[in-house]
C-alpha cells in the first residue's frame, strides 16, 4: 500500500501517551493513525468495580487537578483529601521523609557524609555510593538502599547513581506545602511532578470512573484515527529515518512513528538500523500487586508504609482508602501489598490463593488480626512495573533520555517508552512537548525520505496541501 497522499504519523499504542501525542499532532493539523493491539483503547489504564463495591485500577495512578483541568475533567474529579507515607523500622513508624530527620544517628552520619563530599568531588560510581554520600551511611544502608534493592531487584552497587532522584524543592518548601495540604484538606502533590512546578495549588484528584475515564476523555474525537486489534510487527527505517510500519501483515507509510511500546521491545520491531540495539538490554522490574479486601478502615498508620527490613517479602503496603475512601464500601478497606519479582520465577507462578496467603503472613506484623478481617483478595501481575537503571546500560539510558531513539522520525514516549519512572502528569506534558516538536519538524520538512515512494518533490507538494486541509 503506497499511496501518493501524505502518510499520517503512526502511533503505536492507544494508552495515555499515545492518545496525548495524537491530540497534540491533530491540534497542529498533522494527520495521525493509532494502532492499538488490544480490543479496546487504554486496556491497561482501565478501572473496575467488583460486585462487592471494591474499585481498582491496573496500577494506582495519581492525577493532579492541573492535569484534570487541562483535559476538562475537573468537574468529574474528586479531591484526594490526604496522602502520607511512613517508614517502619524496628516496629516503629516514622513519617517520610521529614520524620526520619528526627533520628540523630541518621543526621550525624548524613552531616559527616556531606562534609566528606566537600573534599571528594568524583561522581558516585553506583547507586549505593550516591545514596551514602547524599544521606549518610546510616540512613542509606538501613532504609534507602534496602528499599531501592527490593524495588529494583538488583544489588545497589549494580544500579546507576541516577536511581537517586532527589525531591524537588527545599525542606522548607516541602514543609510549607505539607502545611497547605493540612489546612485545605487536599493531598498537595509533593514529588509527583517534575515537568511542571510544584505548588500548594496542585493536588491529587481521582476521576469519577477511574483512570480509564482519563483515557476515554483523551480519546474523544480521535475515534476515526484508531485501529484496534492492530499489532505492529515491524517499523521500517530507511536511511536513518522511520518511514512506515507493518501491521497485521500489511505495510503502511508513515510520516513518522511514535512508539509507546516498552523500550526493550522496540529494537525487535525496528528494521533497517542497529541504532536501537543497546535498548534491548534494558530491564523492567516485574511486580505482583496483591489487593486484600478487609473489614475495617485505617488499619495502617498512614496511606503508604515502606518496609526496608529484610524480614518482609514486600517493601510497600498501601491503604489507598485512607486517601480515596470511595475505593471501597464503607467500613471496609483494601491493602495493596507490592512484591517485586522476575517474570517467570517461583513467586510469579504462584497461584492467586498462595500469593494472598503469603501476603497475609507478611502483613501480620502491621495488622495482627488481618486474617480475621479478610473478605477476599485479588492479585494483579505486571512484567514491566518499573524501569531498572542498571549501571551496565546507563550510558545508553542517558542517550535515550537526552537524544531520543537516535532514529529520525521515531519517538519513544510514555512511561515504558521513555524508560523512566514518570508520573501521569509528566507523561502528559513530556509527550505533548515531544509531539509538538515533531509537528514543527514535519512542517519544516514535510516529506520523509522514503525510498520506494514517489519522488520527494511531489510528496512535498502534496504534504503541504494535506496538512493545511486537515484541521
Amino acid at each position: 500500500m503506497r499511496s501518493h497522499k501524505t502518510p499520517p504519523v503512526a502511533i503505536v499504542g492507544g494508552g495515555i501517551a499515545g492518545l496525548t501525542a495524537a491530540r497534540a499532532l491533530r491540534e497542529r493539523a498533522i494527520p495521525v493513525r493509532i494502532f492499538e493491539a488490544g480490543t479496546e483503547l487504554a486496556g491497561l489504564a482501565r478501572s473496575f468495580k467488583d460486585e462487592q463495591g471494591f474499585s481498582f485500577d491496573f496500577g494506582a495512578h495519581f492525577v493532579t487537578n492541573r492535569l484534570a483541568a487541562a483535559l476538562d475533567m475537573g468537574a468529574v474529579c474528586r479531591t484526594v483529601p490526604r496522602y502520607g507515607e511512613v517508614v517502619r523500622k524496628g516496629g516503629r513508624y516514622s513519617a517520610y521523609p521529614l520524620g526520619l530527620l528526627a533520628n540523630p544517628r541518621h543526621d550525624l552520619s548524613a552531616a559527616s557524609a556531606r562534609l566528606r563530599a566537600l573534599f571528594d568531588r568524583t561522581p558516585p560510581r553506583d547507586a549505593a555510593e550516591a545514596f551514602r554520600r547524599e544521606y549518610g551511611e546510616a540512613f542509606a544502608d538501613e532504609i534507602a538502599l534496602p528499599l531501592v534493592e527490593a524495588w529494583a531487584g538488583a544489588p545497589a552497587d549494580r544500579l546507576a547513581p541516577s536511581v537517586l532522584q532527589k525531591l524537588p524543592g527545599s525542606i522548607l518548601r516541602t514543609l510549607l506545602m505539607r502545611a497547605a495540604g493540612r489546612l485545605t484538606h487536599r493531598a498537595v502533590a509533593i514529588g509527583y511532578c517534575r515537568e511542571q512546578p510544584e505548588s500548594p495549588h496542585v493536588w491529587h484528584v481521582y476521576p469519577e470512573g477511574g483512570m480509564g475515564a482519563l483515557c476515554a476523555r483523551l480519546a474523544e474525537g480521535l475515534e476515526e484515527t484508531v485501529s484496534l486489534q492492530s499489532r505492529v510487527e515491524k517499523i521500517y527505517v530507511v536511511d536513518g529515518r522511520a518511514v512506515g510500519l507493518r501491521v497485521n501483515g500489511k505495510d503502511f507509510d508513515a510520516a513518522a512513528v511514535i512508539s509507546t511500546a516498552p523500550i526493550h521491545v522496540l529494537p525487535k520491531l525496528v528494521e533497517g538500523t542497529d541504532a536501537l540495539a543497546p535498548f534491548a538490554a534494558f530491564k523492567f522490574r516485574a511486580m505482583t500487586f496483591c489487593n486484600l479486601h478487609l473489614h475495617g478502615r485505617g488499619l495502617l498508620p498512614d496511606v503508604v508504609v515502606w518496609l526496608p527490613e529484610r524480614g518482609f517479602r514486600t517493601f510497600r503496603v498501601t491503604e489507598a482508602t485512607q486517601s480515596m475512601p470511595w475505593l471501597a464500601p464503607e467500613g471496609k478497606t483494601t491493602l495493596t501489598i507490592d512484591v517485586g519479582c522476575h517474570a517467570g520465577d517461583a513467586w510469579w507462578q504462584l497461584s492467586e490463593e498462595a500469593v494472598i496467603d503469603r501476603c497475609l503472613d507478611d502483613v501480620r506484623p502491621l495488622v495482627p488480626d488481618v486474617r480475621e478481617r479478610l473478605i477476599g483478595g485479588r492479585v494483579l501481575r505486571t512484567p514491566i512495573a518499573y524501569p531498572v537503571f542498571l549501571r551496565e546500560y546507563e550510558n545508553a539510558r542517558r542517550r535515550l533520555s537526552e537524544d531520543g531513539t537516535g532514529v529520525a522520525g521515531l519517538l519513544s514516549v510514555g512511561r515504558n517508552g521513555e524508560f523512566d519512572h514518570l508520573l501521569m502528569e509528566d507523561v502528559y506534558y513530556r509527550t505533548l512537548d515531544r509531539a509538538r516538536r515533531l509537528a514543527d519538524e514535519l512542517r519544516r520538512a514535510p516529506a520523509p525520505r522514503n525510498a520506494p515512494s514517489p519522488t520527494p518533490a511531489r510528496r512535498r507538494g502534496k504534504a503541504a496541501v494535506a496538512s493545511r486541509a486537515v484541521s
Partner: protein
Amino acid sequence: MQALRWAPTPDGLAMEPARCCLCGLDDSDPVAVGEDFEYRTSPEVFRAVRCRRCDLVYLNPRPAPTELSRIYPADYHAYDFSPESFGLVHAVRRRLEARRMLAWCAGLPDDARILDVGCGDGFHLEVLKEFGRPGWRLEGIDPDPRAVEAGARRGLTVHRGTVQTLDLPRSTYDLALHIMTLEHVDDPIGVLEGIHDVLRPGGRCVIVTDNVESPDFRLFGGRHWGGYHFPRHLHLFSKKTLGAAAARVGFEVESLRTIVSPVNWVYSIRNLLVDLQGPEWLVERFSLRSPGALAAFTVLDAVNARVGRGAVLNAVLRRPPLHVSAKAN
C-alpha cells in the same frame, strides 16, 4: 465486574480548546488552576496557561461560546453597577472614573463621536454624559441584551452585538473605549481590528485591562488572583503582550502604563477565603460592596502604580493618521 467509564457531568460546561491569539499556537505551560469562586456558575475546574513564545496568559480550555448566558448569570455585576446596589462605592468610583476619562477625552472636538465597546450597564457612558461636553455623541455596544436594556433605562444608545458583527460606520469615531473588556473576548485581535476600522484616522482607543505583571498576580497568580475571574477572562495581558497585540492590528501606542485599581486585590483575597471556606461575614468584607477594603487596597495599589506595577494596564492607542498609513503602504 464492571468497567468504569467516563461520563461528563450533566451540569459541566461545554468547553473548547484555545490557542494563543498572538502566535496562533498552543505551546504553553500551565500557570494556574482555579474555579468560578465568585459566581459558582459551574463545577468546572479551569486552567490558565502562559504561551512559551509570546508570554500571553490565556484560559485553556475555555467555555464554548454557547455557554455565555451561563457564565454571565443574571446577577453579574457588570450589568447592575447601580447606586442603589453599590451606594458609596458607586459614588466614589464615579468621581474617580470621571477624572480619568476626561483626561482620555482631552483634545476631542465638541461634536466628537465616542464608542464604548463592551459597555456593560453603560456606567462609563453615563459618566461621560454627565461630566463631558454636551455635544459629544455617545454610543455603546455589547452582545448581551441586558446591557441594551440597562442602557435604554439610562437613556443611552446601546447597540446589541460586537464590533466585528455590527455594521458600524467605518473611519468615523474619534474615541473608542474598551474598559475591562478585552480580557473577556474570545478574539482580542479581531476586536482590536474592528475598533481600528471604525476609528477615524488619528482616532484613539483607550484600553483598560488586568495586568499580569503586578504584585497581586505574583502573590495570588497560582489560583486565587481576582484577575482570572474564572472562567470569564479568556486573555490576560502584560505591557509586552498588549503592546504586541496593538502592533499586530496596526495601532500606534501613545502610552502604555499601569493605573490604580483595588479590585483584583480585594477579589484575590475574597477568592482565597472562599476557597478555604472562610466564614461568610469575613468573605463579605471583600467585595465591590466593601468600601473599607477597596479604600485600603487603593492606597496600596497607588504605591505599586507609582513604580509601574499597578493592578491594571492602561493603553492609549492611535489609529495612524492617513499620511502615515499611506507611507506604510
